[in-house]
Structures are given as structure tokens and as C-alpha cells.
């Protein structure tokens, strides 16, 4: 139960894990942002096929637990591909990145859709009445406002994804959680280990929240 002694041994390991946690979270969020935007545009498309594709994707992600998705990407898909004759093996990092991207992308598309719908319809009409086409109006008028509207929800999704990344440790991805489990298994110091892990995540999220608040204040309409 010696928190101080455990910290001395555990901290170097958690710092190694921290790099992996941050790497997979930041990369997946950047990719998910793009994926979410594209999916959102599909959802708002006039072509039923495109709407159908985006609905299916979002439905699949929302309808299954993240842990199942991790296993599916890491174990199930490679086996299917092998059966089809492709020798594809994913590293835990790559599998984790793909899973988190697909997962956050689906939720972000819903966040974007809500924000775009929240922009007053008069804005689109004003832009169109000036001669801008739909795409130009989106780019110059609707999206800049929608991004401001959705910032709080987006930050919320960042936090969720950061925390969700701890789940990838189950496929052997050496993040904070993975390092902690290894250490705990070796020393049986469950209380001290997981207390420090919780503190690590708390601090990370406190920093993220602080930065987000600053950004939010800057871009307020």
C-alpha cells in the first residue's frame, strides 16, 4: 500500500505508456475528425445510397461495444482476410488506431450533423442569395459557425476517446493501462498502481479541458 514507493518504480513505466496513449489518441482524433466530416456530408447528401452508407456505419459503431470492435479489428478481420487469401497482420497499435478512428469518427459525424443543423437556416439563404453555390456557402458560412457550435461536444468526444484508448491494452498495446497491468501483476500492488493510473488520466484530462476552454473563449462568436 506504499503509494510513494510504488510511484518511484511505476512512474518510468507509465511515462513510456503515456507516449503510446497520446500517440494513438491524437492520431485517431485527427483521422476521426476527417472521417466524421466526410460521414456527416454523406448523411446530409441528397443521394439515398450515400445516406444509407453513413447510417449503416454509424449504426454499426453505435450498436456495438468498443471492446468488441477492438477484437473485431485485431482478430476477426485479419482471419477473414486470411481466409480470402490475403496475409494481413495488424500490430496492436495499428488495430487500436483503426478502431478508435472508426469509433470516434462515427460519433463525431453525429456531432457535426447536429451543429450544422443548429446553424440558422437564414444563414444558408443569405449566402445563396449572394450567388454562392451550396458548397461555397457551406465552406464560408455554415461550417465556420458549426465548428464553433460543436466545440464543447467535440472536446467531450476527445476526452471519451482518450479514456477509451485504455481499452486497447487488452490486445497488447503498451499504453498507460498496459504498463500498469504488467507492474501490478509483478508486484501485486493493486491499490497503489491503479490509484496512480487514475491520477495520470485525471491530469491528462484536466490539461485537455483547460486547453479546450482557452480555445473556446478565443473562437466565441
Amino acid at each position: 500500500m506504499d503509494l510513494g514507493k510504488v510511484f518511484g518504480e511505476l512512474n518510468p513505466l507509465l511515462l513510456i505508456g503515456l507516449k503510446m496513449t497520446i500517440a494513438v489518441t491524437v492520431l485517431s482524433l485527427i483521422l476521426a475528425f476527417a472521417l466524421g466530416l466526410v460521414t456527416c456530408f454523406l448523411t446530409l447528401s441528397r443521394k439515398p445510397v450515400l445516406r444509407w452508407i453513413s447510417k449503416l456505419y454509424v449504426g454499426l459503431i453505435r450498436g456495438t461495444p468498443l471492446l468488441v470492435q477492438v477484437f473485431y479489428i485485431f482478430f476477426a478481420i485479419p482471419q477473414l482476410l486470411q481466409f480470402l487469401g490475403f496475409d494481413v497482420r495488424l500490430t496492436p497499435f495499428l488495430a487500436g488506431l483503426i478502431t478508435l478512428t472508426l469509433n470516434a469518427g462515427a460519433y463525431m459525424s453525429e456531432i457535426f450533423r447536429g451543429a450544422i443543423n443548429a446553424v440558422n437556416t437564414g444563414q444558408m439563404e443569405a449566402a445563396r442569395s449572394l450567388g454562392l453555390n451550396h458548397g461555397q456557402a457551406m465552406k464560408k458560412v455554415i461550417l465556420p459557425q458549426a465548428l464553433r457550435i460543436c466545440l464543447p461536444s467535440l472536446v467531450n468526444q476527445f476526452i471519451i476517446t482518450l479514456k477509451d484508448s485504455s481499452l486497447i491494452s487488452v490486445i497488447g498495446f503498451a499504453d498507460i493501462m498496459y504498463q500498469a497491468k504488467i507492474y501490478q501483476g509483478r508486484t501485486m500492488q493493486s491499490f497503489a498502481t491503479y490509484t496512480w493510473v487514475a491520477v495520470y488520466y485525471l491530469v491528462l484530462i484536466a490539461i485537455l479541458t483547460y486547453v479546450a476552454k482557452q480555445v473556446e473563449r478565443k473562437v466565441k462568436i
Partner: protein
Amino acid sequence: MTAQIVVNNLHKYFGNLEVLKGISLEIEKGQVVCVIGPSGSGKSTLLRCINRLEEPTRGEIVVDDITITDPKEDINKVRRHIGMVFQQFNLFPHLSVKENIMMAPLELKLKTKREAEQKALELLERVGLLEKADAMPRQLSGGQQQRVAIARALAMEPDIMLFDEPTSALDPEMVGEVLAVMKELAAMGMTMVVVTHEMGFAKDVADRVIFMDEGIIQEEAPPSEIFTNPKNPRTRGFLDKVLSV
């Protein structure tokens, strides 16, 4: 020469509700036409059909010899020549006053940044708001916002301006400053279609007043005629109500 705006047997349905029941009218270049009538009479819908913010269900609209109801026509091109001013101003809240005015000419690559800025400042001076160039819309009063909205529409150098109840959302003391800008536009020969409840403005500025009710034009006449000697009993009833207050 044909009129600048020709509307021919225009019908508009919202679902099963017929809002416009066969509207025909012609507006000559440089004319100011005010459209009056009770709410729900279809006047705003008519105006919004002229730049196809509403898709007409049936009928034909020709603006500057271009049949805009023809789906083959590029409506975005046509809209550049038709300015529109909305009841709720609809300024872009994330852009400064100046940027609001410069946005469309820049995005459509009609002007360089320098030209667009020059034009924006010129227009702001014209509507008396030069000192607000760098303000954000939310910092302006309603009347100021509407004047900026007029300047924004003028930045595209339109030859037609549509006004959709431009003073209805304003506090009474701000109505005058917006009407003054509109009067000046009219005096400079702009073709204007104004949906309004400002009977004073209609009397002073309009070449012609159109009274609409229940989706049809009930009466159209010069203001001197329609306000003093309305022929249609509906027009008389409406004017009695709005002029007696």
C-alpha cells in the same frame, strides 16, 4: 423591350397548401414595387420565388431575359444580380462587418482583396456606418445590422434588390434609418421589390403597390390610387385596418 422581371402564372404549393394561386406581374427596370397584404397572403413567398430561394411549383419567372424557372439555367449566376435583404438581417456572425460585405465578391473571385475592401468601405460610407467596418455584427443595433445587410447585397452590384419585410424586426426608432437608405437606392434607379408593412414608405417611394391576399394579386395600382381610392373591397378592408392605427 420586355420588362426586367416577368412573372407568369406562378403557383407555389407547400405540401397540399396552395400559397400562390397564379401570380402574373411585370416590373420595369428602375421601378419600385411595394407588395402589401395580410400575413399569410403569400407576399414573402412570391418574393422568394423571384430568386428561387423557394422553388416555384408551376409557372414561369423571367429576370433580365433569363428564364430562371428553367432548371438548365445556372441559378447561382442569376442570383449575383439580384440582391436580397431579409427580415432577420442574416448577417454572418463569425465575420466582421467589412468581411460580411467582402465575402461573396471574394469567394466568387469577382474582385481582388483590395478592390473588395475598397468597395466595402465605399458602401459602408454610403449607409453611414464606415466607423463600424471592423465591428462584429452582434455589436450593432438592429437598424445598423440591416444597413450592413443592404451594403452586403449591394457589394455584388445587383441591378435588382428584393426586400423581405426589411423593417419588421426593428425597434420603431430604427425603422427610419433603414428606410432612408432604401429611399436613396430607389432615387438612384435601382429596381426594387419590397414586401413591407410600412405604408408611408409605399406611399412615398413606390411606383406601384401590389395588394396580395390569399395567394393572388387582388389589386395593383400607383400608391396615389390604391391608398386613396382602392377598388377591391379586400384592399379597402386591409387598408382601413392598417392605416387607422
